[in-house]
């Protein structure tokens, strides 16, 4: 029975999509974590809830409306934050609550909670179809290519905005690009862990990897490895024991984080040679 699950095509799709999402969330999340923007993913996810509700009410595929609503609201919020000098955490709170508020009102208007809503709140990776998988793989590919092409600009403006500006890097444009990529990543990842647990994939593998890695690329690779391990093991274990994949995946990531802290407190983890 245990090995049988590797023969199911829905399991192939789930694992392939899961790995792509794990890589995507790790890389985009690393930039957000280092910019002290850890909860931004969460805020975008909550605003996408409004988009999902809108799609369900209008009879449009909810993820399309979620992409539109989250990206647009994240960009608007970033603009407002810069223009009116609102702090990062406060702008996250505004974005987060407006998305949920809009979603709740729309759901109320269209007759209350349905099963569809729950699958978006908690993820439904075992239900992804071939088209979803192709979309997830394509978006992951495009975002990774953009990151590789603009690697120096992204890293430098994350490291120190002022110095990046002096080196002639268009820091504002890079900031909007990161917000845009975060928007796409969040909505793409909803299928894996749902709206409520997205920030876990953005943050936990990265804060763990930062304790191990020295350079940026090394840290990103370690983070991806932890993330892929959590996602694949989480999907398999949750299927075998018939529990929710999203919770299981996140608990594996938290487990690695907890072990790392244990190793670190015991003095076993040192970067000095």
């Amino acid at each position, binding site marked *: 029975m245990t090995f049988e699950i590797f023969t199911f095509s829905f399991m192939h799709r789930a694992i392939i999509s899961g790995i792509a999402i794990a890589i995507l969330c790790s890389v985009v999340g690393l930039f957000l974590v*280092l910019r002290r923007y850890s909860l931004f993913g969460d805020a975008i996810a909550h605003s996408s809830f409004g988009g999902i509700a809108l799609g369900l009410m209008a009879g449009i595929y909810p993820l399309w409306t979620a992409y539109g609503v989250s990206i647009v609201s994240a960009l608007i919020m970033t603009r407002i934050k810069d223009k009116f000098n609102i702090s990062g955490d406060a702008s996250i709170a505004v974005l987060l609550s407006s998305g949920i508020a809009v979603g709740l009102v729309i759901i109320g208007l269209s007759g209350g909670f349905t099963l569809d809503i729950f699958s978006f709140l908690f993820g439904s990776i075992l239900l992804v179809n071939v088209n979803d998988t192709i979309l997830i793989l394509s978006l992951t590919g495009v975002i990774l290519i953009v990151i590789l092409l603009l690697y120096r600009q992204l*890293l430098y403006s994350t*490291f*120190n905005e*002022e110095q990046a500006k002096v*080196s002639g890097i268009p820091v504002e444009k890079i900031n909007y690009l990161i917000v845009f990529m975060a928007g796409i990543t969040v909505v793409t990842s909803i299928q894996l862990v749902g709206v409520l647990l997205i920030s876990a994939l953005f943050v936990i593998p990265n804060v763990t990897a930062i304790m191990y890695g*020295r*350079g*940026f690329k090394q840290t990103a690779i370690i983070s991806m490895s932890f993330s892929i391990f959590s996602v694949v093991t989480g999907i398999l274990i949750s299927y075998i024991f018939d529990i929710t994949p999203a919770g299981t995946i996140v608990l594996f990531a938290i487990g690695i984080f907890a072990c790392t802290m244990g190793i670190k407190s015991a003095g076993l983890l040192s*970067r000095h040679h």
Partner: protein
Amino acid sequence: MLKVVEIDHLTIEYPDVKAIDDINFTVSQGDFLGIIGPNGAGKSTLFAAMLGLNTKYKGTIKFFGTDIRKSKNYLKEIGYVPQKPIFEKNFPATVNDVVKMGLQKESDESKIDEILQQLWIHELSERRIGELSGGQQQRVFIAKALVNNPKILILDEPVTGIDQQSIDLFYSILKELNSKQNITIIWSSHDLDAVNKLANHVACLNRTLFFHGESDDFFKNDELVKQYSEASMQEHMHHH
């Protein structure tokens, strides 16, 4: 001598205070200019305008004969070392990563090793930036500023919070860059002795330009030094 920087009637106002009040000066190629002045004299404000970080100023700033409002190309020829580089303490970047951020063309990667060796930080290249001492970090930021072979190096009180041994090494590196590689240096400091030893030109800034000229003309004129010291002392008392 070719003028690389021309500051003409520069005034920078904040809502309640004039941070820079109508200053004029020029810097020639190969100059080692020390800008001295007490805290709050406008040194960092001046640099922010020169580096294009603050565009709300009156007057003109020219680099290599071109108004910086018209083109940002001059930034390619400038290496900038900030007062205290701010970054996340546990930012996962090695010394090598940080210096590479400054590199405009990927093709020049061999340059990184050369610069690291020149600044005595070659052995640190795979260490994380946050693990280094203040003096070592400062040298990494100079390496980053130098990696594109800049014509001008701008340093904003670069030795704040650094031990004396590192400061001495830092100064000898600056002197060498200026004399051997003919890099123009614009350096702000409130250490009069160091400026006296290193710089060949001095600008005394205290919102207005109190003096600008050859270093000797300033330091050999006791009356000027006394006036300057009194003015900075008053400013110092005012701030406390």
